[in-house]
């Protein structure tokens, strides 16, 4: 986080903050300005920007009339809301029991090896983020993963190479 923040100029931060405030204002029109709009708003911001920038927090807090601490608490509670920009592609491999029963641990080791990333990390070139997911509800046909928005079942070493090969952009 600190690296991204240091890269930015103060003027750049102000521009970002203005963009975020405008987006939040637009979202309030759609989903309302009560506290229960917070999760839908965070989802919408994440869909638009890819992550929840700390600079969004004051705009959200003021729009929903809650404290910045409340917003921060919610952002950091839920695994879906990352606070740093994700890679252009997102690989999410299931680690839950049913996939483990079908050999997911070996696939996890292979993926770690091929991507050169541990779960939770993003590649230095910003190409791919590798995350764990705990169950996609495809429990009879594991090991399973979501590659961007596409579910994939019965992953074996051959399909894994093909899938990762497609993420070259």
């Amino acid at each position, binding site marked *: 986080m600190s690296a991204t923040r240091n890269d930015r100029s103060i003027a750049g931060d102000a521009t970002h903050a203005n963009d975020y405030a405008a987006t939040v204002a637009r979202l309030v029109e759609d989903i309302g300005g*009560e*506290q*229960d*709009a*917070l*999760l*839908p708003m*965070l*989802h919408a911001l994440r869909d638009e920007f890819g992550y929840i920038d700390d600079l969004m927090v004051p705009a959200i807090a003021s729009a*929903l009339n*809650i404290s910045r601490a*409340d917003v921060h*608490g*919610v952002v950091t*509670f*839920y*695994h*879906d*809301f990352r606070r740093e920009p994700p890679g252009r592609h997102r690989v999410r491999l*299931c680690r*839950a*029991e*049913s*996939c*483990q*029963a*079908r050999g997911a641990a070996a696939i996890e080791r292979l993926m770690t090896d091929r991507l050169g990333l541990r779960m939770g990390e993003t590649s230095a070139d910003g190409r791919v983020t590798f995350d764990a*997911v*705990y*169950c*996609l*509800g*495809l*429990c*009879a*046909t*594991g090991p*399973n993963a*979501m590659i961007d*928005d*596409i*579910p*994939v*079942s*019965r992953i074996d070493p051959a399909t894994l190479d093909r899938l990762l090969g497609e993420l070259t952009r």
Partner: protein
Amino acid sequence: MTRVYVSKDMAAVALGADAVVEALSNAGAHVVRTGSRGLFRLEPLVEVETPGGRVGFGPVAAADAALVLDGSHPARLGDVSAMPFFARQQRFTFARCGVIDPLSLDAYEAHGGWRGLTAARALPQQAAIDAVKASGLRGRGGAGFPTGIKWQTVHDAPGPLKYVVCNADEGDSGTFADRMLMEGDPFCLIEGMAIAGHAVGAERGYIYIRSEYPFAIRTMREAIARAAPIVAPFVLEVRVGAGAYVCGEETALLDSIEGKRGEVRAKPPLPAIAGLFGRPTVINNVLSLAAVPFILSEGGEAYAAIGFGRSRGTMPVQLAGNVRNGGLFEVGFGITLGELVMDIGGGTDSGRPVKAVQVGGPLGAYFPPSMFDLPFDYEAFAAAGGLIGHAGITVFDDTVDMAHMARFAMEFCAHESCGKCTPCRIGSTRGVELIDRLVAGERRAADAVERLPQMRNADGGARPAGQEIELLRDLCDTMKFGSLCALGGFTPYPVLSALDHFPQDFGADAPTSSAAAE
């Protein structure tokens, strides 16, 4: 033009159904997308409409489209519903799933849809609740609380504003029935919620769906838009989770809808008295609510006519993990675990012997094959030191290391703990450390505090494995009785059952039974 049916269920898509659909369309077929029949070994499954009924083929690859359309594909299954896996089921809740276009109001109505809602609206509120009570329906999310009594409590609670909330945060590994129903028959859930709304006097409902289920979210939102005029004045809305397992706990789920951290609330007050936004709230699992249309249209007695003991009606059992015939099997309570795993599930997919099955998700107990005569029933499972939970059965072959699975249960609890109560938040991390030490055979030396002269009662030496196991059992006891909710409270089930039934995996010093440690 030949009409063919192909599932658009997320599992079918993950196995390549979209490419098959494209090939079939290019070959000139008219493709109707359905939910999944529920036997995933057959997906992508293609059913071709013929004068003699639908003829199934599966699994089908995109390159095989022409063979399917001319009927010469080798994986010809004939009438899919006549296959033993389907013919042995009692599909009360999943009758339409896999058969109809999930978003077609005409198809829903033609297959018996809305009859439950019509029947409920013709009844006084109390009579609708009485029908649910008579059915003996118990909460399908896992706790097994009688649904009718919950509805009665909300009905009797004073106040003009009440809510119906559907818990569709199906985070348990090995379960997918909620997802299949929302993707395959969403109007059934909407109908169940509208009936609940009528019965308790609520005009607003929420469906909280986990974000890992994008297909279900899309289908539910579209179905709600299409059914809105039918269920009006009842209004429904989908809320999307954000990757927190603990939000499947009902009070954490309510806090999440309110825009807060998904932390568990202390009970009382029960959600039925002070739930969403502090108002009386019916909160039920997808499967509980989806069972209600059948109960209202066919009568509570018809539902209660099958079952076992105090577990009435059917349970959509999910066979998962290393199992040959993995999928959804809806059947009356009372079937044995062995019948489900061996006869219906066909044993492991790998062909190796079954070593253990975990029933009820990450918080459910592991059972060895020697306990396969256990009947599927809330009370029988509780008596055997487990739970049926959401009725997911995850099968493991003999390559599984049960100490690793016990450690994983603790690790998962540590990862997902909401942090509100100490036994769960800290106990789970201590549990991981303890199991790591046991498996590594390391003796933990006395720490700095234990070496202090004031600590006269600390023995100061390294703990042998027997004492470590005793400590693990003690920790599990604290978590079980001291945690606020089922996350910390039930994590001991997989840990202790692994320890009791598979002590050999925990190192040579482990006692052979729980009695030895007590």
